[in-house]
């Protein structure tokens, strides 16, 4: 959310670029994924023991699964990708930018460690979007 806000505040993109705060949503995000030509997602990543830096994953590097789960609330982003694929409506380009979280305690905002990584994540996204727009 911090990354989307930061990118949006400094945006000079045309209005074909949409910013969405996905919140805690699962299936509501399906339409945004399926209707887009290209998607960038910011998220916290696991495994938690990865080095704390910014990771960028593209297209087939992202896992898609329909999990066995206890409730609809466990529907994660990989499942959205699985459904979009089954529907034959995957965006042509999809990129995930993220980092493993430092602190999962009850709080609002980023931990100082993650806040340090925020500018890099935002600049990576800006560069990717600019490349897409120029294609």
């Amino acid at each position, binding site marked *: 959310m911090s990354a989307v806000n930061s990118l949006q505040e400094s945006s000079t993109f045309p209005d074909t670029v949409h910013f969405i705060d996905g919140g805690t949503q*699962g299936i509501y995000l399906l339409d945004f994924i399926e209707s887009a030509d290209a998607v960038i997602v910011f998220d916290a990543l696991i*495994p938690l023991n990865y080095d704390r830096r910014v990771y960028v994953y593209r297209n087939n590097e992202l896992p898609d699964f329909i999990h066995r789960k*206890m409730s609809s609330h466990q529907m994660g982003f990989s499942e959205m990708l699985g459904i979009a694929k*089954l529907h034959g409506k995957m965006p042509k380009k999809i990129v995930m930018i993220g980092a493993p979280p430092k602190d999962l305690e009850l709080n609002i905002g980023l931990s100082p460690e993650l806040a340090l990584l925020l500018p890099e994540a935002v600049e990576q996204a800006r560069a990717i979007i600019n490349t897409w727009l120029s294609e």
Partner: protein
Amino acid sequence: MAKKIVVDPIPRIEGHLRIEAKLNDSNVIEDAYSSGTMWRGIEVILKGRDPRDAWAFTERICGVCTTVHALASVRCVEDALGIDIPVNARIIRNLMNATQVTQDHLVHFYHLHALDWVDVVSALKADPKQASVIAQSISAWPKSSPGYFKDLQQRLVGFVESGQLGIFSNGYWGHAAYKLPPEVNLIAVAHYLEALDFQKEIVKIHTIFGGKNPHPNYLVGGMACAIDPNKDTAINIERLSMIKKIIDDTNTFIDQVYIPDLIAIAGYYKGWLHGGGLGNYLSYGDFPETSLADFKTLLWPRGAILNKDLKTVIDVDPRDASQVTEEVSHSWYTYEKGDSKGLHPWQGETTPKYTGPKPPFEHLDTDKKYSWLKTPRWKNHPMEVGPLARVLIAYAKGDPMIKETVGLVLSKLEVGPEALFSTLGRTAARGIECKQTAGFMRHYYDQLVANIKTGDYRTFNSDRWDPATWPAECKGFGYTEAPRGSLGHWIHIKDQKIKEYQIVVPSTWNASPRDANGNSGAYEAALKGTPMINPEQPLEILRTVHSFDPCLACASHLFDMNGNEITTVKIV
């Protein structure tokens, strides 16, 4: 020696629902324990904040039924401050709520629950021509040609062959508890995909009225959308006709896809009537035709049923300190005056105190505290909430639409009303209710158009927006019937800030741990007595737990790059 099955969510950092079930020597569940493995804590976040902002925080409790907490929240603040909302705001809220329930039930049935009854791999063996004959015999839904099913089957084969079943690799396919013929499985898989595609349309109603989605905007005092038939920026004729089309399509989809599927699938499982459980049912009621306080006008009636007695519906008052209470004798919280004494939410406390084992652990000590969920009780009774509770209460009160639809489903299945007290009954009730709320969408659309035609465009009452107009101290109660059941928000406002806020959510009723008297919660009771074909693959447990449509802390979702499983099953 007796076996124990543990179904546990991973990663633990996300936290969710854990079930421990004890089996006897014949693999029948003797006892079960339900544990919420993560703390929600939103009550603590809300303290000291502006009550007019509370809805925006509570809305994010849930990633599935996003609007319900916003609705209960604005209602509790309006109750505390004595605010009447304009007619349009009431109608729009009802329409958004009916939209939420309809969409949620549809997604629940196809996405979460269908695969408890439908074997995806068996669908690969189906004869598409035969599937077409069956589909056309049960519904007028046009997507039913042999070619349609053949194409779908080939697509599925492609996915399954792309490595280990590809995206469906985590199912219990081929389990002996699956009873559908391959052709019915194929039809159901087709509709699984169609439903997930179609549901995206339904929630556009939330975007139109709420300004955005996910997390549409609510407002204390009304709704944050302007109505003007002649303005581009407001709810106008064009937007209303878009809404009308979505409502019509939704009704068609439910009548021609959901209900026929439900009846077709249930027909093969009507011998499996496990999972009834408590037999106690509670509903606060919802869908006010006038003011919320006048609960006699609610289209979903308020009431309680005890011991499956459909002849008696008991009155319910959630403001009464002796009726709705929460205790923490088996929950990881502590109360100032003793954990076993139930507190009404206006006197409620939220002080976490974890005394469970350090994760990862094999067992919870279920004799002591074992859940992050508190234990809500109604007049000391454990209660089931949700679609089955609402349908039974409406049925017992003689609601004509519910009586007719329940009667139709029962006669098609050739079973009596006692079959409703089961997992399958819960699943059928959700479908019946979905048909009803799709009808409510039409009803509220018509009400809205009629009211706009009178020239009334008001959506917001600003009389008490300014905190200077508020009393120094006040309390309020806001309720709604969320898709999963009775939801209550209780607020205590002092000096224009939130002093205390307590939320009792539907799944806390259903998934609660034992109370101080040793009474099981609804999940725990429903699992008892269920025979398991293969404890290593506890499909029967998932089926019954899923039939309640669990809603625990959504918390922070993380993206797992390894695509690991999110639920483990262990036999210990």
